[in-house]
């Protein structure tokens, strides 16, 4: 046992370097990472980067077109929205919300999902049956409908939308962790730990979990994209963030009335959502290719 751990430690540098070599060879993943870093950058430095306050109403500047169009104003690069707020600033602040949303959704769904998945996979039997029925029930609901119902129960709002989307996202984490945990459980080292009298809790978290990490990391990246997309969709339906929060989904919904007169109000927030989501999907795809040996060919 003792020597086993020593060995692992000495090997530690190796897989990570191995991973980076594989990962950096994947152009898509690098592009994805670049997108994400760009939006993280916007999110972190939003107050420094945005030329105006995202909620300040500009006098006599209703629905100005972007500055590079005719009639635009140089101080509002992407123009202004229907009540005269600077669109660029709102988009930059929107990155903050989107990143926060993604993180919270993943944090909530991954922690609950991992715990339930580990329990189902490790204990099997009745526990597994019960958890899987729970998963079945959640998956039988159309996901956005379930999220809508949950948000309606808790009342519309950004945080409630996040919780609702996290609930909807749980089953995929549960299933992924359960599948790897079931495989790991049968392996020698787990059997060994058991005979040494390690507690179930310890085995689950310090033996099995680290070995489920590869698919979990991939799912986390994809969880970000799903989470951001679903919360934006709820915002669009009026159930997520509430005005005047500069959230991209609600910005889109607000702009719907001006779809023919001022199409950029609809175009830009949507492009932001698309790029963030694309970034996480590219990253997740790249991670899967490098981390999941079964798909390596």
């Amino acid at each position: 046992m003792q020597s086993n751990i020593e060995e692992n430690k000495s090997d530690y540098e190796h897989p990570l370097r191995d991973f980076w070599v594989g990962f950096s060879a994947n152009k898509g993943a690098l592009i994805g990472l670049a997108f994400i870093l760009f939006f993280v950058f916007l999110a972190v430095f939003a107050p420094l980067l945005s030329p105006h306050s995202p909620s300040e109403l500009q006098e006599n500047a209703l629905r100005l077109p972007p500055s590079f169009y005719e009639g635009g104003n140089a101080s509002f690069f992407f123009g202004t929205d229907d009540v005269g707020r600077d669109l660029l600033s709102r988009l930059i602040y929107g990155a903050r919300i989107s990143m926060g949303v993604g993180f919270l959704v993943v944090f909530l769904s991954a922690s609950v999902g991992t715990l339930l998945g580990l329990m189902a996979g490790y204990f099997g039997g009745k526990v597994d049956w019960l958890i899987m029925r729970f998963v079945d029930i959640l998956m039988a609901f159309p996901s956005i409908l379930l999220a809508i119902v949950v948000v309606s129960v808790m009342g519309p709002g950004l945080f409630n939308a996040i919780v609702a989307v996290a609930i909807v996202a749980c089953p995929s984490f549960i299933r992924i962790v359960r599948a790897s945990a079931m495989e790991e459980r049968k392996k020698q080292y787990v059997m060994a730990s058991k005979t040494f009298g390690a507690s179930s809790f310890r085995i689950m978290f310090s033996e099995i979990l680290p070995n489920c990490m590869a698919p979990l990391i991939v799912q986390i990246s994809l969880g970000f994209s799903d989470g951001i997309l679903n919360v934006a969709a709820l915002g669009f339906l009026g159930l997520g963030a509430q005005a005047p929060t500069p959230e991209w989904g609600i910005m889109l919904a607000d702009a719907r009335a001006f779809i023919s007169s001022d199409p950029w109000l609809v175009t830009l927030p949507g492009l932001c959502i698309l790029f963030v989501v694309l970034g996480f999907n590219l990253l997740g795809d790249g991670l899967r290719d490098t981390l999941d040996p079964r798909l390596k060919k």
Partner: protein
Amino acid sequence: MLNFLLKRLIDLVPTLLGVSLLAFFVIRLVPGDPVMLMLGERGADPKVYQEMKRELGLDKPILSQYQSFLINSFRGDLGRSLVSKRKVTEEFFGRFPATLELGLCALFFAALIGIPLGILAALKRNSFFDYFLMGGSLVGYSMPIFWWGLILIIIFSVGLGLTPVSGRIDVLYDVPTITGFYLVDTLSPEVLAEEGLAPFISAISHLILPSIAMGTIPLAVLARMTRSSMLEVMGEDYIRTAKAKGLPYKKIVLIHGLRNALIPIITVLGLMFGSIITGAILTETIFSWPGIGKWLVASINARDYPVIQGGVLFIATMVVLINLAVDFVYAVINPKMR
């Protein structure tokens, strides 16, 4: 085989029971009393209020309400909508064909374009085309469809004036409801005799944009699935054998490769079918499509309990059964699954 099916069927019972329980109670947790909501500013009088509550059967203890919901839904009676007072089943089947027609068209669009692109990408593996396509499919997969639908409207309806703004058909055509699918009903002899092909074309033109919006994500998934499935099959021994035998490459791919690669693809298509409703909620909202998705969202807002619990139970049952059927077919084809 029979055991496997039986076990899965037995597992369905608690799942559906759980769904009904969730649908019934969760919607009742939504704050806001449906009676007050219906009466609005006029709900002030407690007498009127109590009377209404009693008439809707909402004054009974909640457990007995659940019990009668369960028993009645077994008999195929999902109750009546609080708002319209019509039977939930009747309302459901009045709208379901619209959603189904749109969903099928979207999947058709996805398969029609996605599968050939996937095959091409597999054949030209690691070419620029392959990268471009896989990149493009990820963009499609990342698409916020509520935005994509709006962009399509901006370009094709508002900008170019090519497609109608919303709805299922030009309202001036009076199409009899036979199947509820406009693409079928507009081809009925009486419509053809009276109006010719114009109603059919009108129905298609109304379907184009919503189908593209709803079909984009399935298209991306299908293209990727097809590609990887083709690559896997092309690596198999029998393909190599066929190749060694000197059969023409195209023939090998299309006859042997595709046939085997299609199995997982069809599975995915089947599973996608279950997620139609999710796509429908957003697409129908954007295109004013008179289907299930919009109706359910409106019913949540109106706290129309019988519609939510009945509609959700119905959809969940359908999803669960489709998944089971897909699993079953898969198990027949691939015995390792058991």
